[in-house]
């Protein structure tokens, strides 16, 4: 972990040059602390911690792939009544709109674990946006106070 800084007024940023699963706990702690720092209530922080964890886990496991860790940069900013988290990576392009939706009503023996991560992200945030800009994936997560 490296590079905690405040690049602009109110924005808190953390970059990991070669992100691995072992960085997840520190990234969650960073998002929780940054959400508090920008004045978001605890429920907003809790939701964004989970959403950011799911996004970063996907980047490490699928965006970059085993043995080729790459950079992840997280920015946390104040949003109206809540907070906004932006996550940038240089891995394979993936639009979460293409993630298949899990069937939450299927009987236990027909349930599949695939798609639960993005499903959770959608459930806990108010906005999920994706953009691919010159080789960089940008995920934006917005959560407003309940």
């Amino acid at each position, binding site marked *: 972990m490296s590079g905690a800084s405040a690049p602009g007024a109110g924005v808190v940023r953390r970059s990991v040059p070669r992100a691995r*699963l*072992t960085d*997840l*706990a520190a990234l*969650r702690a960073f998002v929780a602390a940054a959400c508090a720092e920008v004045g978001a209530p605890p429920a907003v922080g*809790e939701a964004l*911690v*989970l959403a950011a*964890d*799911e996004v970063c*886990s996907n980047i*490490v*496991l699928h965006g970059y792939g085993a043995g080729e860790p790459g950079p992840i940069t997280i920015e946390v900013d104040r949003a109206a009544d809540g907070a906004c988290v932006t996550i940038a990576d240089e891995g394979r392009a993936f639009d979460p709109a293409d993630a298949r939706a*899990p069937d*939450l*009503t299927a*009987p*236990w*023996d027909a*349930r*599949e*674990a695939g798609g*639960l*991560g993005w*499903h*959770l992200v959608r*459930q*806990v945030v108010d906005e999920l946006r994706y953009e691919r800009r010159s080789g960089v994936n940008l995920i934006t997560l917005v959560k407003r106070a309940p």
Partner: protein
Amino acid sequence: MKITIDQRAHVTVVAVAGSIDALTADTLVHAMGEQMHAGNTRLVAAFEGVEYTSSAGLRVLLATLKEARQRGGDLRLAAVQERVLRVLDLSGFTSILKCYPDVGAAVASFPSHHA
């Protein structure tokens, strides 16, 4: 993450403490798999010490639940914290997985005459 195994008469209690994420989930998968391969398929996951889970924890629970039931047993949850319960609820897991307020109730839910 810390995992403690407690063999009761006819039920195996797997107590988990810490956070379950894409890194630590593997440890839990391994622990659950070890129990089932040893023939212990009546499992209680004691979650009092679990303060956080991502979808990685859901994957472990689903895989364990499926294997335990296919082997004639079951996986039941005990003492799930509110934050973790919200994740289970949002994922439709509370309809396929039985949750009990404490370990004693979860253990007692397995009939003792069960072969």
